[in-house]
C-alpha cells in the first residue's frame, strides 16, 4: 500500500464515542455518584460591586444535614485563580465584583439541604458604585474594580502608513458596530465530583484542559500537583468554556476537608449567572479604498467589556486584533484594542475568541464599500482576498494552504443555483455574503500538544492525549490519524483522553487547534512507535527496516509477503531489547510573537479560510427575519473526517444564527434578566435554514495529513452573511447585534 493513499483519514468513520452516547452509557460528571457523597451549593453575590464586611455562617452550619460551610478562610492553598492574570478568587475575600461571584459554600447530605443552608448564610455588604459599561469604566474618576484600575489590557497594531492610506483613498467609510454578550449554552450544565483517598485527590469533571485544571486546582487546595488527578468525564458541550473555577474545584475543596466524596452540579440558572460569556465589543471601523475597489487602509478601534475578571481576556484580545482586518490584503492598518473591566459577568473564551465580533464588522465594512462603489460583493472580496503568499495585517506572509478564492467561487455558484425568490410588498428576500480567515492555535505564543501511543503484548494500541472530546469529534479524528499511520482499523486503537495520571499535557481544547496541533503530535508518536516496531520486526526477519511495510497487524516484505512478523512478535522483541513499548509526539507550531507596539509578527503557523452566504426573508411589517438557506464552503486543509467537519459547519451556522438574530444576555445593572432557556433564545430545529456544507481542500504541509481546523471558523462568516443579506433584502444596515425583530422594526420604520 502506497504511503500517499489514505485509508482512514478522509473517511467519515463512525465516531469512537458514538455507541456510548447513543445508548445512554456515556458518563457525564453529573452521572457519577458515590456512597456517603456530599452535595454542594455556592452562595453567590447578589451585588454587582460591594465590600464584604462580614459573613455569618452560624445558622447555616446548624441547619439539618449540613456537614461543613466554607468561606475564603477555608481555602488551604492559594485563593487566586487565573491563567493570564490571577485576579479571581475561589471564594471572595473582601470584595465582590459581579452578581454571581462565589462567596461561601455549603456541603450537606442532600442537594436540598445544601441549597436551604446556603440561603441562611448572612453576608454583610457595603455597596460600591457599580460600573456596567466600558465607557463608564474608562471615565476619569470611575470607581476602581481592581487595584490596578479598570483597564485589563491594551494592544496596538501598526502596519504601513494608515494616514497616507486615508489620503490616497477615494472612498472612505466609518462605522460603529456593537455586539452583545452571549452565553455558551452547552446542554450539559457544569458538574464535578471529587474523592480524596490515601493522600490523593481525584476529580471527575468535564474540562477543556485537564492539566491546567489539575495545576490550578492543586494550588487552590494546597496539595502537590502530583497528588491531584483530574479525570475528564464525557463533555456535554463546551464552546470555549468549562475550565478554571468549575464545580470540580469546589468538590475537591469539600472532599479534602470532609474526607467524604463531594459533588457539585450547577442548575441552568447558575450556569447562566456564574460562567463566562462572549465579550461584547464596540468597534469603530474606518475603511478606505480606491474607486476600483482596492482596499488601501483599515483603522480599527475596539473597546470590549471583559467583565469583572481577566479570565481569558488577553487571549480574546490578541485574536481579535490579529483578525480584525479580515481576510484581505491591506497595506496600511492601524488598530487599538482595549479590554476593560466592568461589574458585568466575566468575559471568557467562546468559540471564535473575539473574531465573530470583528468578522461582523469587517464584513459589514466591505459590503458597504461594495455598495458605495457599485461592485458585486464577491468581486470586491475576490479583488482583495488572501491568496497563497499574501501578507496579513500582522505582516505575516501566508504559505500555500490558502484557498479563500475557491470558497468564494464555490459559494457564489451554489448561491446562483439556489436563486432568489421574488420579493413582495411585505416580504423581502436577499442574499448576503461573509468571509473569514482564522489562525489555528494560540496567537503568538507556544502551544504544544503532547500525545503518546502505546502498544501492549497482544499488539493492541492505546492513544493517550490530554484533551477530552468536547463533542466536536476530536477523539475520532485523532484515532483516525494514528490508524492511518499504523495502517489499521480505527476500532483497533483505544483512546484515553484527559486523565492527568496517564495522559500527556496536550494543551487546551481551544482555538480550533486540536486536529492541527495534537493531531500532528499523534502522527509523530505513531510514526515513532511504528519505527520502533518496524526495527524489531526487521531484526527478526533479517531485513533492513526500510524494506518492511505494516499492514493489518503484520510487518511484511512486499516482495516476499510470507516472510512476515506480527505486531505482538515485534512487541516481544522490543521487550527483549528493553526498548519502550510507547512513543511520544509533541508538535508546537512555529510562531513569531507580536510586537507589543506594532502588533507585527507571525502569530499562527497556519490559517483556515471560509465563505458563507445566507438567503433571508424579512417580514417588513414585523421586522422578523427568517434565514432560509446557508451555503458554506470551508478550507480546512485536509478534512480528516468529512462528516465531523460538516457537523462543525452546521453547528457553527446554528450558533451564528443565534448570534445574528436572537441571542443576547440582557443585563440590568449587572444582573442577568434572562438566565433560562425560555428567555434566552437559541435556535431550535424549526429555526435552522437549509444548510449546504462544502469543503475546499488545501492541504497544510505542517498539519497531520494536511489538516488545519474548523471548530471556530464554522461560526465566523454566518453572522455577517445574515446581516448583509438583511441589507440586500431591505436596504437596512444593522450595526448592532442581535438583529431582533424589535431592533429591525425600528430601523425599518425610522
Amino acid at each position: 500500500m502506497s504511503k500517499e493513499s489514505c485509508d482512514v483519514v478522509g473517511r467519515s468513520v463512525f465516531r469512537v464515542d458514538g455507541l456510548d452516547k447513543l445508548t445512554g452509557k456515556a458518563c457525564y460528571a453529573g452521572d457519577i455518584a458515590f456512597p456517603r457523597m456530599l452535595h454542594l451549593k455556592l452562595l453567590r453575590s447578589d451585588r454587582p460591586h460591594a465590600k464584604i464586611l462580614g459573613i455569618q455562617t452560624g445558622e447555616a452550619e446548624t441547619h439539618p444535614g449540613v456537614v461543613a460551610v466554607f468561606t475564603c478562610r477555608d481555602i488551604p492553598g492559594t485563593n487566586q485563580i487565573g491563567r493570564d492574570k490571577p485576579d479571581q478568587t475561589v471564594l471572595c475575600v473582601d470584595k465582590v465584583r459581579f452578581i454571581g461571584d462565589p462567596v461561601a459554600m455549603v456541603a450537606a447530605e442532600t442537594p436540598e439541604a445544601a441549597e436551604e443552608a446556603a440561603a441562611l448564610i448572612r453576608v454583610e455588604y457595603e455597596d460600591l458604585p457599580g460600573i456596567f459599561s466600558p465607557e463608564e469604566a474608562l471615565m476619569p474618576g470611575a470607581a476602581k474594580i481592581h487595584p490596578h484600575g479598570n483597564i485589563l489590557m491594551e494592544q496596538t497594531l501598526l502596519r504601513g502608513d494608515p494616514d497616507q492610506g486615508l489620503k490616497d483613498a477615494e472612498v472612505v467609510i466609518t462605522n460603529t458596530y456593537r455586539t452583545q454578550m452571549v452565553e455558551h449554552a452547552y446542554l450539559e450544565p457544569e458538574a464535578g465530583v471529587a474523592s480524596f483517598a490515601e493522600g490523593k485527590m481525584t476529580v471527575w469533571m468535564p474540562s477543556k484542559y485537564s492539566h491546567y485544571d489539575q495545576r490550578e486546582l492543586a494550588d487552590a487546595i494546597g496539595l502537590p500537583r502530583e497528588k491531584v488527578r483530574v479525570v475528564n468525564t464525557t463533555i456535554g458541550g463546551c464552546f470555549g468554556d468549562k475550565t478554571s473555577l468549575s464545580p470540580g474545584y469546589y468538590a475537591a475543596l469539600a472532599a479534602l476537608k470532609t474526607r467524604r466524596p463531594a459533588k457539585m452540579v450547577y442548575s441552568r440558572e447558575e450556569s447562566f449567572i456564574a460562567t463566562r460569556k462572549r465579550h461584547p465589543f464596540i468597534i469603530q471601523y474606518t475603511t478606505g479604498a480606491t474607486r476600483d475597489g482596492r482596499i488601501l487602509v483599515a483603522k480599527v478601534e475596539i473597546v470590549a467589556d471583559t467583565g469583572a475578571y481577566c479570565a481569558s481576556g488577553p487571549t480574546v484580545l490578541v485574536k481579535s486584533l490579529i483578525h480584525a482586518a479580515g481576510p484581505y490584503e491591506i497595506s496600511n492598518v492601524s488598530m487599538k484594542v482595549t479590554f476593560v473591566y466592568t461589574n458585568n459577568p466575566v468575559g471568557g473564551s467562546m468559540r471564535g475568541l473575539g473574531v465573530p465580533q470583528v468578522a461582523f464588522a469587517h464584513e459589514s465594512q466591505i459590503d458597504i464599500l461594495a455598495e458605495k462603489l457599485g461592485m458585486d460583493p464577491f468581486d470586491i472580496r475576490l479583488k482583495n482576498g488572501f491568496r497563497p503568499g499574501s501578507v496579513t495585517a500582522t505582516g505575516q506572509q501566508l504559505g500555500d494552504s490558502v484557498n479563500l478564492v475557491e470558497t468564494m467561487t464555490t459559494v457564489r455558484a451554489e448561491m446562483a443555483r439556489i436563486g432568489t425568490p421574488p420579493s413582495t410588498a411585505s416580504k423581502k428576500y436577499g442574499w448576503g455574503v461573509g468571509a473569514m480567515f482564522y489562525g489555528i492555535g494560540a496567537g503568538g505564543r507556544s502551544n504544544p500538544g503532547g500525545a503518546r501511543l502505546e502498544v501492549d503484548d497482544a499488539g493492541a494500541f492505546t492513544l493517550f492525549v490530554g484533551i477530552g472530546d468536547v463533542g466536536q469529534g476530536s477523539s475520532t479524528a485523532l484515532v483516525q490519524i494514528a490508524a492511518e499511520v499504523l495502517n489499521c482499523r480505527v476500532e483497533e486503537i483505544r483512546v484515553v483522553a484527559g486523565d492527568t495520571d496517564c495522559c500527556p499535557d496536550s494543551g487546551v481544547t481551544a482555538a480550533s487547534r486540536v486536529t492541527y496541533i495534537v493531531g500532528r503530535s499523534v502522527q509523530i508518536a505513531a510514526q515513532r512507535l511504528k519505527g520502533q516496531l518496524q526495527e524489531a520486526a526487521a531484526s527478526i526477519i533479517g531485513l533492513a527496516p526500510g524494506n518492511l511495510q505494516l499492514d493489518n497487524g503484520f510487518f511484511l516484505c512486499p516482495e516476499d509477503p510470507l516472510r512476515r512478523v506480527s505486531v505482538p512478535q515485534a512487541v516481544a522483541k522490543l521487550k527483549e531489547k528493553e526498548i519502550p513499548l510507547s512513543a511520544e509526539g509533541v508538535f508546537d507550531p512555529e510562531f513569531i510573537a507580536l510586537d507589543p507596539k506594532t502588533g507585527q509578527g507571525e502569530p499562527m503557523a497556519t490559517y483556515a479560510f471560509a465563505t458563507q452566504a445566507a438567503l433571508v426573508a424579512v417580514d417588513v411589517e414585523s421586522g422578523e427575519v427568517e434565514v432560509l438557506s446557508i451555503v458554506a464552503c470551508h478550507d480546512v486543509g485536509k478534512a480528516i473526517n468529512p462528516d465531523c467537519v460538516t457537523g462543525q459547519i452546521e453547528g457553527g451556522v446554528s450558533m451564528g444564527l443565534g448570534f445574528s438574530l436572537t441571542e443576547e444576555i440582557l443585563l440590568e445593572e449587572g444582573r442577568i434578566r434572562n438566565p433560562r432557556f425560555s428567555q434566552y433564545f437559541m435556535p431550535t430545529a424549526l429555526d435552522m435554514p437549509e444548510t449546504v456544507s462544502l469543503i475546499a481542500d488545501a492541504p497544510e504541509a505542517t498539519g497531520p495529513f494536511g489538516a488545519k481546523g474548523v471548530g471556530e471558523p464554522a461560526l465566523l462568516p454566518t453572522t455577517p452573511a445574515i446581516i448583509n443579506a438583511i441589507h440586500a433584502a431591505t436596504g437596512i444596515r444593522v450595526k448592532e447585534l442581535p438583529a431582533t425583530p424589535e431592533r429591525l422594526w425600528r430601523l425599518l420604520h425610522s
Partner: protein
Amino acid sequence: MADKQKIRFKVNGAWREVETRPDRILLDLLREELCLTGTKKGCGEGECGACTVIMNGRTVLSCLIPALKADGAEIMTIEGLGEEGRLHPLQQAFLEEGAVQCGYCTPGMLLSAKALLDENPEPSVEEVKRAISGNLCRCTGYTKIIRAVRAAAETLREDLDPGQPTRRKR
C-alpha cells in the same frame, strides 16, 4: 419531610417498585433510584428537552413529572430503546449520519424521534423539525439529526414491508 410512598411502574419492559418522596420528580427517580442516568437534566424547568422519556406512548419531560404520576405507567428511557448488542434503527441512523456530537441532548432527541415515528412512519422534514423542536441541541445545528430521523423512518418502513424499493444510498 413528607412520608415516602411506594409506586410501581414499568420501565423499559420490566416492572419496578420504588419508594419515593411525593415531591420527587420522575427525572431524579430514574437517575438516582433506578440508576438510569442516560436521561439527562439540562435545565430542570421543561425548556431544553434533554430529560425527554416516553410515558404511556407519549413523550414527556421527566423533569416536570411528579414521580407519583408514574405509578402504573409504562416508561421507556434511552436504555430501553435498543437491545443489548443491537441498536434501534434510530440509533443506527444517528451513528451513520454523524448526528451525535457532545451527546447530551441525544437520549431525549432519540426518544422524541421514536415517539414521532411510532405515530408517523413517513414524516416530512417539517414534521421532523416540529417533533424535535422541544429538544435543544447546541452542537449539531440539527441538520444531521433531521436527516438521521428520516433515514431511520425509511429503515423501519422497510423492516415492515421488505417489498419496498431499496433504501437510499449513503
